[in-house]
């Protein structure tokens, strides 16, 4: 597969993000045509704000907008506080964004529980339930006072229009539509889908509530009116899904025939989707008794000649380690998805962190070189999944996809993907004629290090796969010479992977003295930061690796050449890619690790600020 990497919408930059930030307090004009809007909503779980966010996302994407939604919950299983953020744009959305343009608080208590997820700025319009009373002092204590705070009798409007309080969020959607020009037709369609079959009168009640919200907004214009620009005429219809959906779809496209796994947040949706779909393509899903059995059964399926995968998150990854080693030494193709969450141990099960890279590269005993690929957003999760299968099949190795909670669970409206761009790789299987010709040597020491792999059922191809070191035929050995040769084979075969330019994304002037490197979900933030910095006139470049291991020394070394100052940005306490690069490359002094623990994503403006600061430092 040789696909070009995602392009950045450089022409029409999302400059407005810059204006919102306190460190750059430029003033907005009073009349706003927005091409990008970030909304937040918070309430009690019973209010259904997340479901309202989804309606908004559906509506916007069906109108052709790019959109992205993340959600966050309290620790209660149900009914605790819940919140969501929705970013709507006429351009490709690069990340969930920073401070909110609009915030809807159904009550103060729940809102304040989401400090980091729902940041306000001086430019935010804060809408709140009238009954909740004026904003408490907590807001002042945070240091940012939104420029406009609007109280709306949401409860009362709901009761009056719908006759019950079950349509609160439809009033909210009406308000948002009325005040920010979000087309109501899409919202209406969404209501129909959602409530059409949910009991007499509920749809009508919500329709009335929506109309009431729109009406109210019209009657109470904002001091600084906004309007979301229409999406480009050519926008066409969008795909609306999250990273886990994309991974499942990518796997099906690549021809996955077996999935073995054990449920764990935030990866479970991949298994759930495949449990519904895989049968249609002649495959099977096995919900196993634990993660060891999950990867075990997948390894068995691969031994039997099928494309197979497993998916998990940190704690499950720990359990899979031993069998990962088995797949490496038995040279069996296998795809393992790790949707990273905060660790160690149970850690932060519902929050993103980029702290499993070293585990992905190094977990397990022995000398192992294990390919690790990381998608950076919902859309490229499809490509990276297909790529992971291709690499696994071509090089007969387990491949880890390092996604993270944000990518995996944020819902995004993205452009359709032209699947004809991708070609699929199948493992090299010896033909029956070849097998009849001479005795089969499963682990033949070829120049490339890749030796044809047979599978049960193939006449003449019988061999012993094993965790124990083997000779070329596959017979067990404990000889040092053969062990060294086999280790060398297993490393040698992956060399070509490092030359795959399409597994890296580079932007900006190759000779630029300033540079940003980021991977995974942080890459989306870095892309926006890169555009902002360029807009500000800085000579800057950006490197986003999709291939994290084996480390492609030449690619990094090339990027480092002109670099005087740079940041490697990642969401982990240690900065794991930075440490990995220090192992394999000559990291210049000027490249610094900008890292912090998970659940606290970086903001584009923050990266620009930190990058510019560096210029004063010695390089």
């Amino acid at each position, binding site marked *: 597969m040789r696909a070009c990497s995602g392009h950045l919408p450089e022409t029409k930059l999302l400059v407005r993000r810059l204006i919102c930030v306190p460190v750059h307090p430029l003033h907005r004009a009073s009349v706003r045509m927005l091409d990008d809007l970030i909304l937040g909503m918070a309430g009690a779980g019973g209010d259904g704000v997340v479901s309202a966010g989804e309606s908004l996302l*559906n509506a916007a994407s069906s109108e052709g907008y790019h959109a992205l939604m993340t959600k966050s919950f309290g620790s209660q299983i149900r009914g605790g506080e819940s919140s969501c953020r929705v970013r709507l744009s006429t351009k490709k959305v690069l990340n969930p964004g920073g401070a909110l343009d609009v915030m809807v608080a159904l009550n103060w208590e729940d809102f304040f529980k989401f400090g980091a997820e729902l940041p306000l700025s001086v430019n935010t319009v804060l809408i709140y339930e009238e009954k909740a009373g004026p904003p408490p002092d907590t807001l002042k204590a945070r240091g940012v006072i939104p420029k406009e705070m609007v109280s709306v009798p949401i409860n009362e409007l709901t009761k009056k229009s719908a006759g019950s309080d079950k349509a609160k969020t439809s009033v909210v959607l009406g308000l948002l539509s009325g005040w920010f020009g979000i087309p109501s037709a899409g919202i209406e369609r969404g209501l129909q889908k959602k409530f059409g079959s949910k009991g007499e009168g509920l749809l009508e009640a919500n329709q009335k509530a929506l109309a009431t919200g729109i009406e109210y907004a019209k009657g109470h214009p904002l001091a600084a009116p906004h309007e979301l620009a229409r999406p480009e005429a050519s926008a066409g219809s969008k795909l609306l899904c999250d990273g886990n959906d994309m991974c499942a*779809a990518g796997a099906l496209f690549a021809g996955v025939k077996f999935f073995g796994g054990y449920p764990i947040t935030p990866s479970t949706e991949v298994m759930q989707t495949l449990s519904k779909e895989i049968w249609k393509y002649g495959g099977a899903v*096995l919900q196993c*008794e634990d993660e060891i059995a999950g990867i*075990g059964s997948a390894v068995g*399926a691969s031994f039997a000649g099928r494309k197979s995968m497993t998916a998990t998150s940190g704690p499950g990854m720990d359990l899979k380690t031993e069998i990962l080693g088995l797949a490496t030494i038995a040279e069996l193709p296998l795809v393992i998805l790790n949707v990273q969450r905060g660790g160690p141990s149970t850690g932060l099960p519902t929050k993103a962190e980029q702290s499993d890279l070293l585990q992905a590269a190094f977990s397990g005993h022995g000398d192992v070189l294990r390919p690790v690929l990381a998608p950076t957003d919902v859309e490229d999760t499809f490509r990276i999944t297909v790529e992971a299968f291709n690499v696994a099949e071509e090089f007969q190795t387990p491949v880890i996809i390092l996604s993270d909670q944000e990518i995996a669970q944020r819902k995004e409206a993205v452009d359709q993907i032209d699947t004809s761009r991708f070609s699929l790789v199948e493992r090299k299987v010896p033909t029956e004629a070849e097998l009849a010709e001479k005795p089969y040597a499963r682990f033949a020491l070829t120049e490339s290090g890749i030796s044809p792999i047979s599978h049960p059922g193939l006449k003449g191809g019988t061999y012993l796969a094993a965790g124990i070191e083997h000779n070329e035929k596959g017979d067990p050995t404990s000889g040092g010479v053969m062990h060294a040769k086999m280790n060398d084979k297993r490393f040698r075969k992956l060399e070509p992977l490092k030359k795959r330019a399409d597994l890296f994304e580079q932007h900006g002037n190759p000779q630029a003295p300033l540079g940003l490197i980021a991977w995974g979900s942080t890459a989306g933030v870095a892309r926006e930061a890169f555009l902002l910095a360029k807009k500000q006139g800085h000579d800057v470049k950006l490197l986003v690796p999709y291939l994290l291991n084996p480390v492609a020394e030449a690619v990094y070394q090339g990027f480092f050449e002109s670099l005087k100052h740079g940041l490697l940005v990642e969401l982990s306490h240690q900065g794991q890619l930075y440490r990995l690069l220090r192992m394999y490359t000559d990291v210049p002094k000027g490249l610094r690790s900008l890292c912090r623990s998970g659940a606290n994503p970086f903001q584009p403006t923050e990266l620009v600020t930190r990058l510019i600061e560096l210029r004063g430092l010695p390089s």
Partner: protein
Amino acid sequence: MTAPPLQAKDYKSELKPIWCPGCGDFGVLQGLYRALASIGRPPHEVAFISGIGCSSRIPGYTTAYGFNTVHGRSLPIAQGVKLSNPELLVVVAGGDGDGFSIGGGHVPHAVRRNMDLTYLVMDNQVYGLTKGQLSPTSPKGLETVTSPLGSLEDPINPLLYMLAYGCGFVAQATPADMPGMAALIEDAIRYPGFSFVNIQSPCVTFGEEDQQLKAHKTKLKPLESLGHDPTDQLAAMDLARAYGTELYTGVFYKNPKPPPTYEALVKLRQAEQAKKARPRDRVLDAYLQK
């Protein structure tokens, strides 16, 4: 022209077993060759999966496709193989430690999924490969290197476990009765569902004197000779309770009406769902917003 019938030696690989001379596993291997020959599937249609242990070395000594995996995980791996290619004859083998200690958590699930697998446990009541430690089937009080003062724990009863898990075919054998053992292995393989044979396979190096084949020969009691009805599950459980005191051989329980296997149900589901498949290059259409 039909190919000549396969013989036991056709399943014997060139690899020389590294087992201690006198190890019970030699007999098991021989019995297995015989059973396979009698069934007659060519070696390349047989997948032989094992864990780690002396006993788990067994796949390498056959000409079948073998997978000598990691300690305790043979059953899940075998399930992946079987589901991926149900046409294969899949045999799983390992030791008492492999199956009932480290791999013990996998056993009930393998049983309840009821794939057509045959699970052979070479039960020597000891950890052979790691040199004589206590195993989950070691009798209480046994002195081993890790229980120098005698073990304080009761052994598990593999036969009773398997019966309680709902296994459709449960048998016990010993290489002290080679024809009986070979016939049982064959019977187990022919059973259309998950089948289990606990093979009392002595460890000459670390095993107890009264657990050796010579002792087996005088101790063993064929269930057939007791008039046991192998379709009687409760009677089977009653007899199985004597594990560790009596050496019963033969079929404890064989479900007279084997339910459909997991892979058969999968096949049905695949056939029924295939109609609903989008072309693979259009899988993303499921997420299209109209």
